[in-house]
């Protein structure tokens, strides 16, 4: 395991101590931080490692949220519902990936964007099952009180984050990760030397959807109410990309740090500029891409490379 992956797991472990220090606000923020971490780390598998510009995160987030939501409504326990959401997302993404990942570049980006649209409309129109545009109310799973509930959901989300981080570390060190890096650098060549690129890409897409779907499921149980325009929000697709760009593409540690930095910025902006928060987010994206295209992690190496010259 490389040093940065070790730091990644250590960082995740440190987050678990949060409930000892903070109140309910810190718990809410911590839960969202874990969720953003899951989304960003998952996106990094297909976007950072394999180099495919996927905008499908929101599609699987919503899919997982609705799968878990519907199951919870039928009285299925939370663990089963979330596992089902993750498993179903994995299977669906593998299948869709086998077809969609034949596309490259702009075409893949557009196809993955329109996946959100298709899922949202399907959920919108399946009123009997999902409540359509009225949204879906999800029954409370426990009656232990507000704080206990908040702590519980924080740890569930944290557990998923730990799972995602472990998955990323395992993938990075495995043949799969190596194959994905080959695909990113030169897919045709990777194919020529006998790498089953379709299989590798599909599995990567599935893995990147799996924890996103599960996180969607936990989110649904946590907020107790979901509707299509909320969980199929295209921002869920764009935010992980911005986080990865903040931290630096490809490096899991950078991506996770990017997620936390992004959440911090978002909180500050939301609190101070509620009317124009999405505009400020836009400015942030533009400034980031123009002036820091390789992310915060590149600053470190730039500083390190700079130091010897002064000596």
């Amino acid at each position, binding site marked *: 395991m490389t040093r940065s992956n070790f730091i990644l797991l250590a960082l995740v472990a440190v987050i678990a101590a949060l409930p000892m220090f903070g109140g309910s606000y810190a718990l809410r923020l911590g839960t969202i931080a874990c969720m953003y971490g899951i989304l960003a780390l998952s996106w990094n598998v297909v976007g950072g490692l394999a180099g495919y510009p996927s905008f499908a995160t929101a599609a699987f987030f919503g899919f997982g949220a609705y799968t878990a939501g519907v199951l919870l409504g039928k009285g299925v326990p939370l663990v089963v519902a979330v596992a089902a959401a993750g498993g179903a997302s994995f299977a669906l993404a593998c299948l869709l990936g086998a077809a969609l990942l034949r596309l490259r570049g*702009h075409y893949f980006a*557009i196809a993955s964007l329109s996946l959100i649209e*298709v899922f949202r409309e399907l959920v919108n*129109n399946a009123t009997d099952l999902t409540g359509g545009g009225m949204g879906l109310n999800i029954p409370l799973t426990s009656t232990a009180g507000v704080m206990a509930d908040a702590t519980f959901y924080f740890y569930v989300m944290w557990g998923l984050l730990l799972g995602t981080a472990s998955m990323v570390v395992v993938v990075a060190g495995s043949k799969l990760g190596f194959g994905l890096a080959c695909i990113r650098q030169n897919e045709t060549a990777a194919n020529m030397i006998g790498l089953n690129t379709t299989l590798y890409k599909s599995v990567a897409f599935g893995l990147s959807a799996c924890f996103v779907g599960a996180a969607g499921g936990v989110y649904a149980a946590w907020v107790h109410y979901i509707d299509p325009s909320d969980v199929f929000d295209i921002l869920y697709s764009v935010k992980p*990309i911005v986080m990865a760009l903040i931290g630096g593409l490809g490096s899991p540690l950078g991506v996770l740090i990017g997620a936390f930095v992004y959440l911090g910025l978002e909180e500050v902006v939301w609190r101070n500029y509620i009317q124009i928060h999405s505009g400020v987010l836009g400015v942030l994206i*533009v400034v980031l*891409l123009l002036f820091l*295209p390789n992310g915060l992690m590149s600053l470190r190496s730039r500083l390190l490379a700079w130091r010897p010259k002064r000596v």
Partner: protein
Amino acid sequence: MLAAQVLINALVLGCLYACIAIGFSLVWGVLNVINLIHGSFIVLGAYLAWGLYQSLHISPWYALGIAAPAFFVLGYVIQRLILNRVITAPVLVTLTLTFGLDLILNNAMIYYFKADYRKLTLTPPMGSVSLFDVVVPIDRLIATASALALTGILYLILRRLRVGRAIIAVRLDRDAARLMGVDVNSIYAIAFGLGAALAGCAGVLMALIFPISPLTSTAYLGKAFVVCVLGGLGSVSGALAGGILLALIEGIGSALIGPAHATTLSFALLIVFLIVRPQGLLGRKGFE
């Protein structure tokens, strides 16, 4: 008679769809950038028409003449100042950058105009024509004719003017065009400006027919996606074919299985087309 009405509606709507998509297709083809601000440009154009009509009583037909140069300058400046810095970066970067710009523009519109739906209503209303049992509102008919005219103007610019040939040359082969003495950066800016101008004009025409709200920008953008992919990228005739095909499919789909499923149908078709025939109906790479 229902079939004839569906067909006429599809033709009328299809030309408008083509007008929405054509600027998007031009930018994608020439700059290799998926321009996510396109939808917001269209809405901004619609607000321009609405504002001019409400405050100065300038008819939308004249507003086209104001929108085209104004949006051309806006697009030109955005390309020169912002987009040009990352033009060689991978898809992810350019796409995310235009998304950021779209967030800014859309938020600004929500801030100034609020998210309420508005409607540009001509006084007196223009009525409608009916031939046998097929009824078409006149304003919609004129909007369609204008959309066709705009499409034709773009075709002529690309076909006849020096700058148009240069745009095609850059699309065919960026490096060869540069070697032949074409100023590629300036062509990029002009192409983006043209794309923005077409979006603004499309917005003016949309204001006549559809309600205006910043929230509708993603719907326009979605239409542009589908039309481009259906028709084939970067050709004027492809956008027309794609627009009419999309309108036909939506019309027939709405009539057969209900309007609620029209969007799902069109996006499902988009994905099928991407997989089966990514070059689109009339797509030939770089040909004009």
